[in-house]
């Protein structure tokens, strides 16, 4: 059940260049059910930023009543978010959307988790949960450069972790797909979040295979709750072109092949 709450910032720090990690505390955490869900943040209570900002749950802990967000301060709204300090409150709407599906028992199964840039955050709690369900998790993470890379160590604690950077400043030089092409990483299921070209390349690789691929999508949103129709996408199998899914409510996680990537 979604709700709105003034959550308290319990920690807020810089992880990498323009990348922030914010931990929030509040009741809302009790309603979180899956990694891949997101919260919708009001960055500005009396200002000129009317729209909320969608940010994925990077992690959450119901006992501590805390959740962690990792975001890139890029535009006006996230810059305002970055200016907030520990102790302040933030107006949070959530949890929203449907996250990554995790079967109860994954004992001995190989899960491959692939992320790019600020698509990496939701994969952290996902990987934790996959591991808790018994899966052997391998991570392939891509960043632009070492300056903006984060959480490699954390992921390493959960399973084998390969990093690619576009400029070669950390891990392998290239894209996550280069790592996949180079190494035959065994996978019974694949989870991914990142830029569209990456998701398209993964669709090509896995859709039609026996390995299920789940992807998390982004779109510019207004309401975040399914009322405004800002965030729709077409269905792949739809000759009429009229059927659609709302990324905010039906997603943001979809089984690859279900919706058209735009």
């Amino acid at each position, binding site marked *: 059940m979604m709700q709105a709450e003034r959550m308290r910032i319990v920690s807020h720090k810089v992880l990498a260049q323009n990348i922030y990690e914010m931990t929030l505390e509040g009741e809302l955490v009790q309603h979180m059910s899956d990694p891949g869900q997101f919260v919708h943040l009001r960055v500005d209570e009396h200002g000129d930023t009317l729209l909320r900002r969608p940010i994925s749950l990077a992690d959450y802990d119901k006992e501590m009543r805390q959740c962690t967000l990792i975001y890139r301060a890029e535009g006006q709204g996230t810059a305002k978010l970055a200016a907030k300090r520990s102790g302040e409150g933030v107006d949070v709407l959530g949890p929203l959307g449907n996250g990554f599906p995790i079967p109860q028992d994954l004992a001995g199964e190989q899960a491959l988790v692939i992320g790019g840039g600020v698509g990496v955050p939701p994969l952290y709690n996902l990987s934790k949960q996959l591991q808790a369900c018994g899966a052997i998790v391998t991570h392939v993470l891509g960043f632009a450069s070492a300056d903006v890379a984060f959480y490699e160590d954390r992921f390493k604690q959960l399973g084998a972790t390969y990093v690619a950077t576009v400029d070669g400043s950390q891990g392998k030089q290239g894209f996550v797909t280069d790592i996949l092409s180079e190494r035959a990483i065994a996978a019974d299921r694949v989870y991914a979040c990142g830029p569209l070209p990456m998701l398209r390349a993964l669709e090509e690789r896995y859709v039609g295979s026996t390995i299920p691929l789940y992807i998390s999508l982004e779109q510019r949103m207004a309401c975040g709750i399914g009322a405004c*129709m800002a965030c729709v996408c077409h269905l792949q199998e739809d000759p009429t072109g009229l059927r659609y899914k709302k990324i905010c409510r039906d997603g943001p996680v979809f089984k690859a092949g279900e919706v058209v990537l735009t």
Partner: protein
Amino acid sequence: MTDGNEAVDLSVDLPGLPMKNPIMPASGCFAFGQEFAELYDLDVLGAIAIKAATREPRFGNPTPRVAETAAGMLNAIGLQNPGVEHIMKEELRWLEHYQTPVLANIAGSTVDDYLFVAEQLSLDPRVGALELNISCPNVKEGGIAFGTVPDVAAELTGKVKAVSHLPVYVKLSPNVSDIVEMAQAVEHAGADGLSMVNTLLGMRMDLKTLTPILANKMGGLSGAAIKPVAIRMIYEVSQAVSIPIIGMGGIQSVDDCIEFLLAGASAVAIGTANFTDPWVCPNLIQALPQRLKAMHVTHIQELVGRSWKAWVTQ
């Protein structure tokens, strides 16, 4: 006006819409209510304006469909909706769980489209009144003349009146040189009320791609940014027509509602603010009586057009 001890009367009796308070969500910003029904009881609302219905289902425009602007947003949804048939079978059936009057918004690209949808919706007992959206800036084919040429708007209004027994509100576009001329034309053609205003046509550029942010290039500007334009138009029109006005455009607070009433609106609709705060409508409805008491107002209707009604007794 009073000392502030009696209860405040918030009710507004508009054609087809007996409202217990003057606040409704604006069309397109509330879908058909389901998402908000998970958050609060829709029966607290004065009325509900549902999303535009068209003859055929529409997917709408490609994404991105929204962009942010200073104190506002642009949208180019493109009238996505499941078509009038589905709306009647599903959405309006579901709305039977609630008593709140329904204002059914209609869009189209030809007169026949409008007439077809108006006739259909008029058969539905759940619909209290029709709202002709002659002003949607996000649809390419035809359409624009309905919202900007007085004769065209008047003709459409007259024809819709002829096929429907329901009160008809015409939703005016602010993108015109002379809003009073538009309002008088549709009043003359039989409109029972006006909704003002729809969005201002606007645009933003993406500095990374060097092209417009919206896939549709242009979109409708809504939110606090347009409030002064809406208030000005309502002020002008309310003095020039004798049908009631549902005011909208950037309303976020109780004081905003009151500004619209003072300008001449009889009721107000809340659009974009639902996206910032999904509970905004019930919150404003709850806060209104206290604010009115502080102003020594007992009947909210005392405020309607107050800014220009010099003759009102104090």
